């Protein structure tokens, strides 16, 4: 299979779907870039280059550079979704949700329910998330727990180029509002990605590794750290299962509970802040539904309850890493009641 970057995988997904379905449009700030300027058009293709080339292929009616007015254009995407388009809006950094959250959680997410099942809202919101780029407190947050909390939204966090493409295609074809979160530090990672279009269903976890001793559950970039940790642990004779749920809403509870029951020891890795976070969420599901099989406390490895710091040494300490994950697994292994 051809090797492609995470960025290219996403770009291909957009090309496929826009080519296939004339109701798919993309919109966002500098989604093309250069509009109204003297130089190159499609100069950026989005701040992270994901939408590069779409302008040339599909023209400015379907590839729309917007004013810096997230409420207006995210809300316009919601309004377009219930009237016949399949918009894919981009907010560069998920941290900007604060200026447009109403249109996401009170409007798009609730139409179908409030309207008694009559609305169909095929709305996709793409955004980058995550720390590690020295971008400080307002450009580094994870925030997926907030979206996961909201009924009516689906939330996707791909960890590999393959998943990125398949999940984005599913998001665009899906008939519900989808928040699609891309970790900035994964854009340049490379993996096998088929040339054709394929959709990965939501709510199906990917079990990357099976081991009898402990289960590690992780999302997005943290999946890679979890796998690093298993390498360290394997050398010590500890054999781990690694589960990447891929979507936090819907969540593949079955797979999570199954592997938790198999190993009886669970570590959940979450780069979001800990309070009411994803690690807490999954832990509580296990504590309620797989209690009898547990051999040790359910451990969470998360960011601390602090904003994201700027200084590189602090930011490195902020994020979970393989060492901390391995340490948590060791702790659950050593646990005796």
């Amino acid at each position, binding site marked *: 299979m051809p090797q492609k970057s995470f960025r290219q995988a996403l770009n291909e997904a957009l090309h496929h779907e826009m080519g296939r379905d004339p109701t798919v449009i993309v919109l966002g700030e500098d989604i093309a870039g250069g509009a109204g300027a003297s130089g190159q058009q499609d100069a950026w293709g989005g701040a992270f280059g994901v939408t590069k080339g779409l302008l040339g292929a599909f023209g400015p009616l379907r590839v729309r550079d917007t004013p810096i007015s997230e409420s207006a254009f995210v809300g316009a995407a919601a309004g377009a979704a219930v009237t016949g388009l399949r918009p894919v809006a981009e907010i560069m950094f998920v941290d900007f949700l604060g200026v447009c959250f109403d*249109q996401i959680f009170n409007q798009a997410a609730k139409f179908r329910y409030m*309207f*008694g099942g009559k*609305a169909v809202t095929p709305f996709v919101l793409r955004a980058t998330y995550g720390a590690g780029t020295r971008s400080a407190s307002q450009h580094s947050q994870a925030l997926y727990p907030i979206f996961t909390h909201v009924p009516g939204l689906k939330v996707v966090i791909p960890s590999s180029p393959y998943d990125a493409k398949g999940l984005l295609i599913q998001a665009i074809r899906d008939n519900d509002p989808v928040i699609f979160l891309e970790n900035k530090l994964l854009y340049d990672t490379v993996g096998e990605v088929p040339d054709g279009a394929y959709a990965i269903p939501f709510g199906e976890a990917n079990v990357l590794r099976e081991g009898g001793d402990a289960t590690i559950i992780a999302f997005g970039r943290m999946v890679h750290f979890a796998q690093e940790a298993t390498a360290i642990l394997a050398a010590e004779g500890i054999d781990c299962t690694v589960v990447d749920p891929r979507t936090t809403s819907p969540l593949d509870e079955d797979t999570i509970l199954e592997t938790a029951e198999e190993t009886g020891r669970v570590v959940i890795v979450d780069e979001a802040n800990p309070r009411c976070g994803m690690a807490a969420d999954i832990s509580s599901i296990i504590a309620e539904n797989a209690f009898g099989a547990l051999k040790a406390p359910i451990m969470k490895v998360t960011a601390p309850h602090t904003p994201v710091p700027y200084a590189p040494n602090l930011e490195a300490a902020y994020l979970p890493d393989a060492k901390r994950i391995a340490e948590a697994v060791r702790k659950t292994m050593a646990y005796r009641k």
Partner: protein
Amino acid sequence: MTGMQLSREKLLEAYRMMRTIRVFEDRVSAEMASGDIPGNTHLYAGQEASAVGVCMNLVQSDNIASTHRGHGHCIAKGCDVHGMMAEIFGKDTGICRGKGGSMHIADLSKGMLGANGIVGGGPPLACGAAMTAQVLGRDDVAVVFSGDGAINQGTTAESMNLAQVWKLPVIFAVEDNGFGEATASSFVVAGEIVKRADALGMAFAKVDGVDFFAVHDAAAEAVARARRGEGPTLLHIETPRYYGHFSGDPDNYRTAEEKAAMRRDRDCLTTFRRRVGEAKLLAESDLDAVDAEVQAVIDSAVKAARAAPQPPLDSLTTDVYVRYP
């Protein structure tokens, strides 16, 4: 075509709509007072000429986005009055199967994108509907009704700029009833509303919202402009608000005299009757007949709503998603 040139049928339809809204709202008010309606409502009485004057220019595939004070817009855009009443009573036969209530009445099949509990929630949505028309090459337009209070919500300002730079076929119908809740708009709205459009190079008009014909004609021009692909218009429509902000509002921030004068001097129904009478377009008896019909419709809607079943309990968890997982 100006309002005065409308056919006899169209004039009767306009009057029927306005009258339906008035009777609907007066009746909801009465039912609220008797405690039989579960939620809370914001009544549109007094503002009827705005919704109807605008919507008489629309076809079914055009879309409107509305507000917390949405009953009038719903009726004017063709929502089923029985379904609306049942919705307000929280019944399974409601237009949203009892899940939405007064503040979320919607019927997408009629181009009614929903009342909205969030002030300023509608403008971005209307831009979206207009974008759909633009992308698909249709000549549909979108109208967003919003209050004078909503003009200060950032979403409104953003949407107006977006509509103007994208030349979206959208109309911002600002219904200025002088108040946002208990606060007079003179206290919170700086400058002149139409100038906010003018500053963006957007077309605008200010009209007397008590006069159906004034609203109709200004809206006709705006809709035609939008259909021609020449972009958005802001209509500043001045209306009275007959009831308090919400049912149950003591409305103590307005004097009794002010309220009496408003009902006496600023009634779109009597104004309409006078104007069509003077122009000899419709007879008193035609209009009286409509009044009687409307009364019967509302009576039957209330009766049906009362008799209707509550939603089944399992509907609590349905319709959150199309498919989950």
